């Protein structure tokens, strides 16, 4: 291992967190990478005007905002509360304790679970991948390590609640989730963010789904105005593993988000449902990606969006079938409706196929306005126009919302969506 040579800001973070040296070494290398990597050109998001500022790290003892606190108090399942990157509270349900589930700080796991940590940490979302993943590795303030032992099937979700208060530094956190063979986990990440300064923020989730395990990953993000938010969540599937995503995004501000299943294991499967509600002047780009590597892998992507105000939302569904991934099957559906004529929607389906022996590969994308004849029909039964419009939009979004793993999460997303639709 090399020497830690950097001064700020890595040293600042490392000293404040008193972390294992192995982590600091990673940070140091990643910071150099971050500084050397070019700003990439994204097709739909202009990064030229991004100030790549990271601010000055301070361990935060900010009070938890009322909304987030109220939400956490309602949770009946296992959760961790993470404020400005630092873990404030970990609560394990009886079920999780009985089944031997580990939920701990990702920094502590480096020493406590070295074998698993070393095998997966930074391998599923490597620092080298992009300027913002390098940034995350260099400056992440914390996150969770979740391990579900072999054969343990968890009914209730394990949820990480991320709270970002008004900050003086980049919001960076990363978690690692590992499910051992034949286990089952419903994992969730929920974000409460206050308007976020001018910084570049980067959030990472790495998931490894062991052989024949099943992981459902649900996210409810609401990034706020200010700065830019990069979100990279990726799950890698072992043989016969199953990975399902439910993404419910109601972000404001500027965000570039990716969820991806790397279907490396033979016979692995993944289904991603994405629901996005754009509002205000939000510029949100969400990519749902399926990378078929193993044989006989299957995937489906379903994205539904509704847009208000001057929001610009980009949905990209990307299916990649690599050479050797014989017998792969995939489907994509994107549907977006513009509630207000001032909004802008882009639905971009992408198929990258390098294997001839493919089972099936379907895609459909549509962008449209609310159908006035649907509105007329509902109104003809006495339903006021504004209510009719809301019902139709909910019709687009409800499948994803219903797939969320807890009442608390569903209620939260419903209230976030209703707040924007009822205006």
């Amino acid at each position, binding site marked *: 291992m090399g020497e830690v040579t950097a001064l700020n800001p890595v040293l600042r973070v490392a000293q404040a967190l008193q972390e294992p040296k192995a982590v600091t070494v990673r940070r140091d290398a990643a910071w150099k990478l971050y500084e050397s990597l070019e700003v990439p050109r994204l097709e739909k998001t202009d990064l030229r005007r991004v100030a790549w500022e990271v601010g000055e790290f301070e361990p935060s003892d900010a009070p938890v905002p009322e909304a987030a606190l109220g939400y956490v108090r309602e949770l009946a399942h296992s959760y961790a509360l993470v404020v400005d990157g630092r873990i404030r509270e970990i609560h394990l349900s009886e079920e999780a304790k009985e089944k031997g589930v580990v939920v701990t700080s990702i920094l502590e796991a480096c020493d406590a679970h070295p074998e698993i940590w070393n095998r997966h940490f930074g391998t599923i979302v490597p620092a080298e991948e992009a300027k913002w993943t390098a940034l995350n590795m260099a400056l992440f303030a914390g996150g969770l390590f979740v391990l579900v032992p072999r054969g343990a099937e968890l009914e209730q979700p394990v949820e990480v609640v991320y709270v970002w208060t008004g900050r003086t530094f980049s919001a960076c956190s990363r978690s690692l989730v590992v499910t051992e063979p034949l286990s089952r986990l419903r994992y969730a990440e929920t974000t409460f963010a206050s308007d976020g300064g001018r910084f570049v923020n980067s959030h990472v989730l790495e998931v490894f789904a062991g052989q024949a395990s099943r992981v459902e990953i649900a996210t409810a993000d609401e990034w706020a105005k200010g700065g830019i938010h990069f979100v990279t969540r990726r799950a890698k599937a072992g043989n016969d593993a199953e990975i399902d995503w439910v993404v419910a995004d109601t972000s404001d501000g500027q965000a570039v988000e990716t969820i991806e299943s790397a279907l490396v294991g033979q016979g692995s499967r993944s289904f991603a449902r994405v629901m996005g509600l754009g509002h205000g002047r939000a510029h949100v780009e969400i990519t749902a990606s399926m990378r078929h590597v193993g044989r006989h892998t299957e995937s489906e992507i379903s994205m539904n969006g509704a847009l208000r105000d001057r929001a610009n939302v980009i949905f990209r569904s990307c299916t990649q079938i690599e050479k050797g991934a014989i017998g792969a099957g995939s489907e994509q559906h994107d549907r977006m409706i513009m509630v207000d004529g001032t909004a802008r929607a882009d639905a971009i389906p992408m198929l990258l196929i390098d294997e001839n022996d493919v089972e099936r590969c379907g895609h459909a994308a549509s962008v449209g306005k609310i159908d006035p004849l*649907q509105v007329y*029909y509902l109104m*003809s*039964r006495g339903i006021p*126009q504004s*209510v009719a419009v809301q019902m139709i939009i909910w019709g687009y979004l409800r499948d994803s919302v219903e797939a969320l793993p807890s009442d608390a999460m569903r209620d939260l997303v419903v209230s976030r969506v209703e707040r924007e639709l009822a205006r």
Partner: protein
Amino acid sequence: MSKPDFVVRGLRVAVEGKEILKGVDLHVRGGEIHAIMGPNGTGKSTLASAIMGHPHYEVTGGEILLDGQNVLEMSVDERARAGLFLAMQYPAEVPGVSNANFIRTALNARRGEGNEMPVLQFHRRLVQKMKELSIDPSFAERYLNEGFSGGEKKRNEILQMAMLEPRIAILDEIDSGLDIDALKIVANGVNQLRSDNIGFLIITHYQRLLNYIVPDVVHVMMQGRIVKSGDAKLAEELEAKGYDWLKQELGIEDETVEVEA
């Protein structure tokens, strides 16, 4: 509650700048069933749509009054809450909105804030009405008309009517595409509602339905006008002799709406 009183006077309606209805008069009171018959393309659906306020149809003249109130000044939802109901020839499909949720929202909108029907009472009523109309219970949670067969859509329209208890119900080709059993069920649904509190306007181009729902008045529509009115016997006469007989009698060559260039 007073008997419904529904008046259409000198109604003219245009679609995309073309005049389709050229002066239609009707007077339907509670307890009455009026049938409007006529071949395809004579303006029957245009009349129904204009009464309900369909956005594509522009009223260019005449008036519509429900219980003395000017319907033409009301938005579509206000018309419905005032008691108008149209069972549509081609109802829209609305994915993601369950039938039960839709009907409950509609019913409560009609009953008004503070007077909503309790959920359990609503479901009991819904189940009861669905049974009467031989509708499968799974209908309640299916998405509104999505993937419904033609016959299922028609029965769903009647179910909504039965739940909403309108003052004036207009049924546009409710019989098309129904086999005889389904037709009887639908007719039975209408007959059960029959009372002084509701007036019906039943649009059809076959006499068949009128064997099961006996009308008080029969109107025949051609060229965007009512060209003849009579009692139930007129429908039987039309069935026996066909529309050509009437066309000859009235000296009409082309019964469809002719549009002047």
